[in-house]
């Protein structure tokens, strides 16, 4: 099954409460840090652990922390990004719902390392029921002296608050999140300056994903060097994968990075294969923004090597024949799924979620949605397929934030790997209107 660092006690009854959490070793890492480590020591462990940001971009957490400006007399902030909205991703929700204190302990540890005295968890508005769980856990932490003034006699003060968004995917982008946290529209900011220099209220700020922050707890427990021994050389540690789509056993799993993709999809300990004994057609391994992989590139790379669940192996082959680990939103398509319909669905998502600030993204995502709708509904032409590729190029790299790229890449990848299927929709317009790429019941027209 591999090592579990985050979800080891997830099925223990009452683990969401302070009492059970502490019985299972909770707050030991924090106690150890406050008694025996300086903030710089904690940061050192995180750097040595090799932890990469678990929100999707995979930027080394230790390095991100090292960029934080520390001018005298200016408050610094740690903000937890709990705006999990990437289609296919539901791991942070699982972690917060089941073991809220793991995030709280990670927040206190990380705030201590960064020298923040006020920290916020920004959670998506739809997770209001999770916000209630977190606030209950925070109240327990205050009552037991882990938050507030002079925590456990260490001289360190910290206040921790949760605040909700209002339903906007873009607020998962860190500068949009900060705007939203300031009570404004979620329009991403121009960078530089980066949040590490000017973030929340113009002060130096670190924004980290829920899972990244929670992972600081086991890193301090076992030590950064020990953590780095788990997983592969370039992808250290464990990762939460939220598996969904046409799987026999979808759900949230903690894997040691480096598990083979084949084992993860078909293994008895994991997803147990495709639902209803069907065949796999495609996989999006890291949330809807990463390139889709066709069946022949899922368990093997283009070079014929085994494909592993790791940053380096999933991106092997670049965008031509690879993808990305991303957020760990693992979406599996069975043989009955229409790629055009899915690509249209995701294009509609990005068009809906574009904040509207940059024209290439605002207009481009809407055009892509319209063109894909046309193709899916039997009104497309061959030129439309090339038009999509053209729109893609004009969005990519021309926007303030990466939402434009995130919208463009999946469309490009779908056309790259499933061009025939797009062409079928043009050559069989009547069937395209009523059938699912001729895969399910084909109507007689």
């Amino acid at each position: 099954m591999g090592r579990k660092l985050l979800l080891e006690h997830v099925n223990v009854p009452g683990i969401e409460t302070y009492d059970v959490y502490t019985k299972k070793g909770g707050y030991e890492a924090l106690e150890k840090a406050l008694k025996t480590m300086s903030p710089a020591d904690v940061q050192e462990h995180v750097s040595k652990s090799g932890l990469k940001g678990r929100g999707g971009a995979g930027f080394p957490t230790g390095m991100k922390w090292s960029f934080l400006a520390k001018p005298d007399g200016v408050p610094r902030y740690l903000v937890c990004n709990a705006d999990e909205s990437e289609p296919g991703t539901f791991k942070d929700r699982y972690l917060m719902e089941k073991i809220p204190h793991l995030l709280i302990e990670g927040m206190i540890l990380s705030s201590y390392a960064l020298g923040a005295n006020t920290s916020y968890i920004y959670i998506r508005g739809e997770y209001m029921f999770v916000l209630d769980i977190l606030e209950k856990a925070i109240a327990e932490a205050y009552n037991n002296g882990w938050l507030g003034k002079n925590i456990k006699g260490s001289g360190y003060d910290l206040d921790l608050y949760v605040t909700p968004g209002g339903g906007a995917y873009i607020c998962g982008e860190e500068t949009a999140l900060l705007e939203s946290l300031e009570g404004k529209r979620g329009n991403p900011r121009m960078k530089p300056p980066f949040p590490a220099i000017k973030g929340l209220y113009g002060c130096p700020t670190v924004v980290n994903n829920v899972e990244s922050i929670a992972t600081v707890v086991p890193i301090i427990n076992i030590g950064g060097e020990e953590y780095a021994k788990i997983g592969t050389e370039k992808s250290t540690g464990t990762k939460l994968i939220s598996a969904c789509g046409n799987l026999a056993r979808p759900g949230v799993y903690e894997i040691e990075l480096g598990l083979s993709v084949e084992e993860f999809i078909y293994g008895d300990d994991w997803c147990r294969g495709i639902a209803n004994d069907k065949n796999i057609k495609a996989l999006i391994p890291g949330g809807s923004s990463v390139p889709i992989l066709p069946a022949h590139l899922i368990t093997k790379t283009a070079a014929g090597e085994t494909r592993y669940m790791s940053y380096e192996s999933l991106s092997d082959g670049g965008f031509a024949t690879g993808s990305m680990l991303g957020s760990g939103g693992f979406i599996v398509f069975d043989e009955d799924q229409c790629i055009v319909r899915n690509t249209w669905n995701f294009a509609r998502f990005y068009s809906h979620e574009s904040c509207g600030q940059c024209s290439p993204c605002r207009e481009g995502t809407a055009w892509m949605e319209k063109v894909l709708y046309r193709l899916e509904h039997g009104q497309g032409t061959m030129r439309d397929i090339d038009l999509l590729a053209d729109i893609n190029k004009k969005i990519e790299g021309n926007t303030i934030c990466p939402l434009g790229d995130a919208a463009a890449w999946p469309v490009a990848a779908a056309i790259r790997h499933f061009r025939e299927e797009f062409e079928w929709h043009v050559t069989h317009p009547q069937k395209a209107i009523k059938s699912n790429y001729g895969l399910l019941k084909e109507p007689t027209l």
Partner: protein
Amino acid sequence: MISTQEIINKKPPFSSEKLEEVNRIIAKFPQGKEKSALIRILHIAEEEFGGWLSPETMDYVASLLNIQPIEVYEVATFYTMFNLEPTGKFVFEVCRTGPCMLVGSDNIIEHIKNRLGISKVGETSADGMFTLKTAECLGACGYGPMLQCGKQYHEHLTPEKVDALIEEYRQKYSSSKSQN
């Protein structure tokens, strides 16, 4: 039948109990940065004042935070969770994004339409009880198809479960009515 009057009657201001809650929320942010509390207060205002944000409600929220009404409007119109028009007593928001579509969200949307006699998404049933909306990914991808109603997630939906759910909400409403 819920009369429009019933919704219109729910007007600002907050009760003193709610005002206390609002002040606790404002206190979480540094002095001069009270606007940070805006989104959360809008959620509370929506819940308190009939399930939607009327211009009157938004102006009231602006006065609580000492900001211009336009600052509230621009936020309320940006975030999709806020209803800017009156809705039914219960709003069903069905996730329609990829992973849910793969496991049959389209069928669930169709079923709800038929069951409530609604011709398209966004409309409210004739008895004013249910509004059907669709939402983009709600973070329940492994447990779809699903819908959100208020704070509650309803997952692993089937047509039968949807029927039971509709019945459950109807009863919830009539029992709350009889208590008043």
